[in-house]
């Protein structure tokens, strides 16, 4: 092309600052078999979402022994499930050296908790919901509410949009065959024709709002209804859907 001829030197690339939202796996302790079992369990809740996502391992709450922290195994296990570990957040010097040895990127984290080596801690499942009583160090990183993700283009068949931390707001239709997922609420200012999964990390207070309910599936914290079961109530009208006593309840928006 004539570009190179006229402008003289053309570089092969340009560095730009990028801001991406990533999923962090907060590791409490590491046992490869348990890790894989827990991972498989998580994936089964939203199989589409986890496919080929980048993941960082957060060591802020790691309580196991440094010697048990085998990043090669973690990477291998994740890779088997099509998850790509790209880096490590927080952790002490030894842990970070191990991570570097496994060619992982080192991301800055909150203050490192130097933990006295006590007797074997009560094993709790890795990657479970965050404990209620948070340590000050952990509370620091979660002080700000997660920002909502706002989408203004139609979500087309075959596309997937995910808000890993907060709400998802869509100012366009969600088409049949599309999937929208959020840790929080989902708002669709247009017809919802595809699948909407709110509260996918288990938030039972999450709701789904839409201007026209034509969905293939609506799920809140794992409780779902398919199109067939949604037809009787509020179909093709503006509604909100919430979870009451483990049941999805559809209510018209104008009577809310």
């Amino acid at each position, binding site marked *: 092309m*004539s570009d190179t001829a006229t402008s003289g030197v053309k570089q092969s690339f340009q560095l730009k600052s990028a801001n991406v939202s990533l999923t962090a796996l907060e590791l409490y302790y590491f046992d490869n078999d348990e890790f894989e079992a827990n991972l498989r369990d998580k994936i089964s809740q939203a199989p589409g979402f986890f496919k080929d996502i980048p993941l960082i391992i957060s060591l802020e709450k790691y309580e196991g022994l440094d010697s048990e922290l085998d990043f090669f195994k973690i990477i291998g296990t994740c890779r088997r499930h099509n998850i790509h570990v790209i880096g490590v957040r927080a952790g002490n010097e030894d842990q970070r050296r191990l991570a570097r040895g496994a060619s992982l990127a080192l991301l800055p984290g909150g203050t490192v908790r130097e933990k006295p080596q006590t007797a074997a801690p009560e094993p709790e499942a890795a990657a479970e919901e965050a404990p209620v009583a948070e340590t000050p160090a952990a509370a620091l990183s979660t002080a700000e509410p997660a920002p909502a993700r706002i989408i203004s*283009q139609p979500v*087309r*068949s*075959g*596309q997937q949009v995910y808000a890993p931390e907060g709400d998802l707001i869509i100012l*366009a*239709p969600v088409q049949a*065959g599309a999937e929208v997922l959020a840790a929080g609420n989902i708002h669709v200012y247009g017809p919802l*024709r595809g699948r909407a999964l709110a509260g996918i990390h288990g938030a039972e207070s999450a709701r789904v709002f839409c201007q026209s309910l034509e969905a293939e599936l609506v799920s809140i914290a794992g409780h779902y209804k398919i199109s067939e079961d949604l037809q009787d109530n509020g179909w093709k009208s503006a509604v909100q859907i919430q979870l009451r006593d483990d049941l999805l309840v559809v209510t018209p928006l104008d009577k809310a």
Partner: protein
Amino acid sequence: MARIIVVTSGKGGVGKTTTSASISTGLAKRGHKTVVIDFDVGLRNLDLIMNCERRVVYDFVNVIQGEASLNQALIKDKRVETLYILPASQTREKEALTREGVEKVINELSQTFDYIVCDSPAGIEHGAQMALYYADEAIVVTNPEVSSVRDSDRILGILQSKSRRAEMGQDPVKEHLLLTRYNPDRVDRGEMLSVKDVEEILAIPLLGVIPESQVVLNASNQGLPVILEENSDAGQAYDDAVARLLGEDREHRFMTAQKKGFFSRMFKGG
């Protein structure tokens, strides 16, 4: 720089090649230097509809693989002065279309042509993705039925995520809806989706509505782009679409059922 237009649909048999032939002929007829590329490697059809199948020596894949020059492969249309056809290979695999190879050919063509029309194969696989990758604009050909609309929606998603414009973060590919095989009588009887239904679902601007017509089939069989059947409704509808593509404001036609009187039934009007 040439404007690169992909004609795509996801679903097969909706009229992509017919549309590519007519749109490219229409653009050339208005004096724009136009080339139409057949991306359907292995299922070459465009040359039949353009009536140049007996003049194919080298093809798109030959050019990509350096076995022939572009000038050797380009076929000059016999009816319209400024129209050229780059035929697909009938014997190769779709994988022969590499991104670098396609880019090389398109870059070379954009230096001399005003419009490059890419006739996409059906599906959403490699061949279709190659056809749409370099596009500036997309004509999404849709039939007024549910499965075609769904597939068009899918291809619109791919245009938004896997085109060069999307990957480079440039302005998105400009999307146009072309509704083909439209039969207002059947819409009235509830057997087909209406223009309004399709527009509402796909939410992209309407470029035109091509009525279902025997003329389209006859023209294809004769190797004549239907836009050259200037007295037919389908030909005129394509002409309108080309005019709109070039920014002209034309009212949409052929969208309502015609009340057929005794005479028109007698003389098979239209």
